[in-house]
């Protein structure tokens, strides 16, 4: 019957539109993640801050007093950070925490080594990593394998640069 087939076609058209929207919408949201969605991801300190004072003290009481006192001070310092700085740090930590555990450990080790570098060398090494991120893959490989790179950085610094560039996304 023509009327019945028209209704059926109309309904199918509407359903197809809905289906297309359901497919497109999540893809769109993944392509363009909004900052507010990223802010929703809590780290353990955010969850700690939401616990009641009694719950926090109960947990801290399980540790030696000096260690508990140090944690209290560090959390206080974190909570008192400049909001923009804290937001940026939260973003970096979120990226880091999404790495597989083995890569997290590599990054952790390199960051500790980075911290042990002479004070004057840290900005140089950091700038090199940032510079590498701006290059095309071919240029990057050429730079990493070049004589200048080897001459400019110690083997330990070279390893820090390679691993942090590779495993710690910007």
């Amino acid at each position, binding site marked *: 019957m023509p*009327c019945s087939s028209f*209704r*059926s076609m*109309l*309904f199918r*058209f*509407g*359903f197809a*539109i*809905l289906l297309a*929207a*359901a497919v*497109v*919408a*999540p893809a769109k*949201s*993944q392509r363009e993640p909004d900052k507010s*969605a990223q802010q*929703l*991801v*809590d*780290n*353990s*300190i955010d*969850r*700690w801050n*939401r*616990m009641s004072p009694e*719950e926090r003290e109960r*947990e*801290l009481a*399980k*540790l030696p007093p000096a*260690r*508990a006192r140090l*944690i209290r001070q*560090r*959390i206080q*310092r*974190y909570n008192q950070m400049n909001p923009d700085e804290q937001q*940026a*740090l939260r973003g*970096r*930590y979120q990226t*880091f*925490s999404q790495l597989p555990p083995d890569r997290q450990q590599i990054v*952790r080790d390199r*960051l*500790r080594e*980075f*911290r042990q570098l002479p*004070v*004057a060398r*840290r*900005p140089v*090494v*950091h*700038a090199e990593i*940032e510079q590498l991120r701006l290059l095309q893959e071919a240029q990057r490989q050429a730079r990493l394998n070049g004589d200048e790179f080897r001459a400019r950085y110690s083997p330990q610094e070279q390893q820090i640069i390679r691993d*942090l560039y590779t495993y710690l996304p910007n």
Partner: protein
Amino acid sequence: MSCPIENRNSEMLVAYAASQLDPEAAGALERHLADCAACLSIAADQTAVWKALDAWEAPPVSPDFNRRLYRRIDQGMPISWWQRLTRPFLLMPLRQALPLTATAGLLLMAGLLLQHPVSFTRAAAPLNRVVRAEQVESTLDDLDLLRQFGAAASTESGHPDAM
């Protein structure tokens, strides 16, 4: 022939009145009608109905009947803009209105989905509300490392305090 009323076959009498029986069946029924007053009465009544329907002729509907009807309704009672808007749908049979309404609803949902995409990748909510102090300490260590690395970009003599 057996009696159509006794056999609960009154459709045969209706078909006879409408001249839809083949000649052989019609002849058999006419012979039965000669002996059965009840069947004869029903057949006669049904024939009268058909004859009346055949004789009746419906007056033709003028082409602007709907327009004139709406005008008369409008003159008779004031109606709101909303009633004017929905009147075509109210006059529409339910079987036509339902798919239209459903399609409109689907399109509306599609529009809302595109406007406010639902995130299917929400972070899982922590099952345990209580966080252990060691876990916090470990996070603070990682945050410290990341902060010191980030601070190296802006501080030449950078030795930021630990958290």
